[in-house]
């Protein structure tokens, strides 16, 4: 029974030089790889087919003169389209409007969303009710909500305006109504993301902070916000990129009249109203570059971890 093998507690052997010859993967491992590739193949093929080729095609189109009114004149013109767009006042107005709407609405949404998140997180009564109704703006079709605001601010029918004024016919009032519509629709989404962040703040931490003498505001700024920072940054990233693409609300509320057009609106107009594929594609590429820069700034400067960018660990 007491047969025994004595092994000296030798110092760890010199790590043998890693063999270059690949260790054959076992059947299980190979099956796993095969299955993984088979499972992602359909999704990957669809995503690449519907985006990959069109993106390249779009870049190509942006280098061509291509107006469907004059299909015969289609021709490679290098960067001329970019020159035309970037020297165009309408484009820059639209760019300014888009940036303004994006920044203002995201800031308002952050503040309102935080308030709403705190309400949903802390309320003593009707928690389910509050959460349910706040999902309505999130879920409702943007165009429907836009029509509601349109009818509300419209001179003829609106309960919010007198018969004299016509806010949707001048630039700044229109822009603020667009921002209102945007904020109303997307604040709940922001609030939900922030609420998920709030749930990660340990109750004990807040208790400890109040024992340490922090008042409610200090608990919020010194404890909750730092702990929630990742959630806040992800919410901001999502919303900023989304706001930059604004289209539906403007289309319904002003159709881009009176200098209220966004870059998406401009692209759409050049493409489907003007049927100018070259210019439309150029704008599309410029928007894509802008979005990439915004994402880059968030990820590099603010250190937002892109959602899902963890290595998809198995644990």
């Amino acid at each position: 029974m007491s047969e025994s093998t004595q092994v000296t507690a030798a110092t760890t052997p010199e790590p043998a030089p890693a063999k270059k010859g690949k260790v054959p993967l076992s059947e299980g491992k190979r099956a796993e790889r095969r299955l993984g590739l088979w499972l992602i193949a359909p999704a990957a093929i669809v995503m690449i087919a519907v985006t990959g080729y069109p993106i390249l095609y779009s870049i190509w189109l942006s280098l061509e003169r291509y107006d469907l009114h004059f299909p015969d004149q289609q021709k490679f013109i290098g960067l001329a389209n970019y020159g035309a767009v970037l020297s165009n006042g309408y484009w820059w107005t639209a760019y300014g409007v888009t940036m303004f709407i994006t920044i203002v609405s995201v800031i308002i949404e952050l503040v309102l969303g935080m308030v709403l998140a705190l309400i949903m997180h802390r309320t003593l009564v009707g928690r389910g009710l509050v959460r349910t109704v706040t999902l309505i703006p999130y879920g409702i079709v943007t165009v429907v909500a836009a029509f509601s605001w349109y009818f509300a601010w419209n001179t003829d029918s609106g309960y919010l305006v007198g018969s004299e004024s016509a806010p949707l016919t001048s630039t700044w009032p229109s822009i603020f109504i667009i921002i209102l519509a945007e904020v109303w629709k997307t604040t709940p989404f922001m609030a939900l993301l922030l609420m998920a962040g709030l749930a990660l703040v340990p109750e004990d931490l807040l208790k400890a902070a109040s024992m340490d003498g922090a008042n409610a505001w200090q608990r919020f700024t010194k404890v909750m916000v730092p702990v929630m920072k990742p959630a806040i940054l992800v919410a901001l990233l999502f919303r900023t990129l989304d706001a930059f693409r604004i289209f539906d609300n403007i289309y319904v509320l002003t159709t881009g009249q009176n200098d209220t057009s966004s870059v998406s609106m401009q692209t759409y107009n050049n493409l489907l109203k003007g049927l100018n594929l070259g210019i439309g594609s150029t704008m599309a590429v410029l928007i894509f570059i802008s979005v990439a820069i915004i994402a880059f700034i968030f990820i590099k400067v603010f250190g937002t971890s892109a959602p899902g960018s963890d290595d998809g660990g198995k644990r």
Partner: protein
Amino acid sequence: MAEIVLDKITKRYPDGALAVSEVDLQIADGEFIILVGPSGCGKSTTLNMIAGLEDISEGELRIDGQRVNEKAPKDRDIAMVFQSYALYPHMSVRENMAFPLRLAKVDDATVQAKVNEAAEILDLVAHLDRKPGNLSGGQRQRVAMGRAIVRSPKAFLMDEPLSNLDAKLRVQMRTSVSKLQKQLGTTTVYVTHDQTEAMTLGDRVVVLRGGLVQQVGSPQFLYEQPANLFVAGFIGSPAMNFLPGTLENGALNTPLGTVTLSDRIRRLAEAANAPRELIAGIRPEHFEDAKLVEGKPGGSFTATVDVLESMGSDKYAYFTVEGETATTAELDELAADAGSTDVPASGSSIVTRLAASSGAVAGQPLDLWYDSDKIQLFDPASGKNLTYTE
């Protein structure tokens, strides 16, 4: 039922880290073998390699003489019990236990018969139609066992199956696992970090450290003849006391004073070419209240009792002995595993197990005796036990 042979099994991760290094082990048919060691010693990796859940980097794994390195887990005919039990929450207890049989396309009548039989053995008949979520920890553990035994596999692998149970239940389940294994006679490989489980359950115990096998043997043998400092410190509770010592003319000089070694020990030390500076190890039960010992050879010293724990059957007395402490990599690792690295030690802490009739009082000095024939001597450089005998 099967014989399992690990032939120089090595696990190297893609980043070059060596998790398990050249483990050689022959597990006989029907044997209950324990892999034990602190966390990160490679015991779970070894188990997963036997299971087929992890690839073997080098070496060969044979079950009943057949190489199975490349076989998928399902083709190895081995059952496993997980630490978290891994019960399928959407299936009833019955469905959980029947699952492996269904996958093996066993006919319905046989499935029912086998599940009922297993439920009978494990006392789960009343719970067959409940979902795992509604069971207690002990019941879940038994369902996990049930799922393993229904298909009469060649071997059971158990990965810390009792560590999620509370202390009392763990002791009960330990007994039933042992009984069940004897009853079924199925080869079993059991992983634990708990040396008590290792001592009480296994036919043989494999102590691992840093991916290397330290010693293989029966629990009693490991306790009495640890191959090195690590095994000596790991096996046994409370742990063996270690003191720095010097050996001169057959006398051992430690912070406890000088003691003449017994002839047996002296001969062993000479045979092993013991260096002058070494580490002496004494188990707690080899100390005694000097008043209760008469005429037995041994050393004696006087120290103040720091803490006294009366267990009823005996008393644990804790002392601090001034002077140097014994330190080696092994001892540091053991201390880290026990979570006591950051206790500042101004001397060696000694644990002794005294007879219940001892008159020790906390805070009072006490005369102590220790058995000079039970001292073990270790080489501080290699950690090797100099008093080891086959």
